[in-house]
């Protein structure tokens, strides 16, 4: 696989070759620094750890400072491990990885933390359809969950029954987003479609071959 850490910038639209308007998300991706290299001999598996976004020295705890010093880089805000990164190629501590790991036209997966929605009912949270009609004498059941755990059997509510509660703010991955454009100088990746989370949030872009 190959991947990068980045930021969601926002959405816009561009026109494809046939003149169709394509909704796109602009992502700032990398440049990331290799902060650790894990090998089968030493750690039991192959992986590299990437760091992204500058962090103040004074806000970095001493153990982490040592970790970054080992890679010969400044402190980073986000660290993320990528397993089997570009298998066969050797990465070294402090190596800089940028958007050139991707090419235009290929498909990538993007994951991030979705927008928090607060405490929501079952209609919004789980896609329930509510109970009955909005008119014909019925009242206050329109967005209700319905029966939870019938009368004689099972006579209790099963564990894991979908109910109202905190919605959003989950780790969400959107797979197979096509890369429309890459701008190396500005570290921009433009993908087709939408990406979880608010503008400015951190995201992981990865591609499995």
């Amino acid at each position, binding site marked *: 696989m190959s991947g990068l850490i980045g930021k969601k910038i926002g959405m816009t639209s561009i026109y494809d070759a046939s003149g169709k308007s394509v909704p796109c998300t*602009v992502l700032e991706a990398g440049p990331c620094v290799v902060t650790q290299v894990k090998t089968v001999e030493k750690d039991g598996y192959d992986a590299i750890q990437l760091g992204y976004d500058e962090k103040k020295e004074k806000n970095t705890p001493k153990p982490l400072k040592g970790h970054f010093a080992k890679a010969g880089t400044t402190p980073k805000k986000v660290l993320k491990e990528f397993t089997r990164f570009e298998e066969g190629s050797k990465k070294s501590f402090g190596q800089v990885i940028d958007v050139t790991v991707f090419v235009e036209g290929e498909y990538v997966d993007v994951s991030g933390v979705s927008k928090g929605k607060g405490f929501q009912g079952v209609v919004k949270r789980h896609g329930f359809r509510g109970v009955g009609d909005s008119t014909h004498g019925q009242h206050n059941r329109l967005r209700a969950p319905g029966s939870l755990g019938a009368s004689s059997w099972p006579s209790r509510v099963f564990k894991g029954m979908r109910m109202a509660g905190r919605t959003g703010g989950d780790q969400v991955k959107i797979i197979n987003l096509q890369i429309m454009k890459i*701008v190396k100088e500005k570290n921009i990746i433009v993908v087709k479609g939408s990406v979880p989370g608010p*503008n400015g949030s951190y995201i992981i872009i990865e591609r499995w071959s």
Partner: protein
Amino acid sequence: MKNQLIQYVEDNFVEKKENPKFKAGDTITVSYRIIEGVKERIQQFQGVVIQITGSGVTKTFTVRKISGGIGVERIFPFNTPLISNIIVNKRGVVRRSRIFYLRGLTGKKARIKEKRGL
């Protein structure tokens, strides 16, 4: 304010088009290229502009016409490469920028006063 990187993408990957100026209430003819397989033809859509919405590269306008007694509305992006030409036929006098009240009117009631002396 728009983010610089989004602005960069819009400036570099979307070709801006020079369109004649028009606003809600004007009657225009839009020549729209339609690609069918390998063949290409031009379709004209004439009607009243009922709204202009959005900004930048995602700005669009809505044109309404009556076709065979049925109201038809089409939304066009300003910057789409598929528009080959826009002609302004008439300048209308209207008091608001979105003339949705036109949807409820038919026949003589649906006329718009023309702006004279341009």
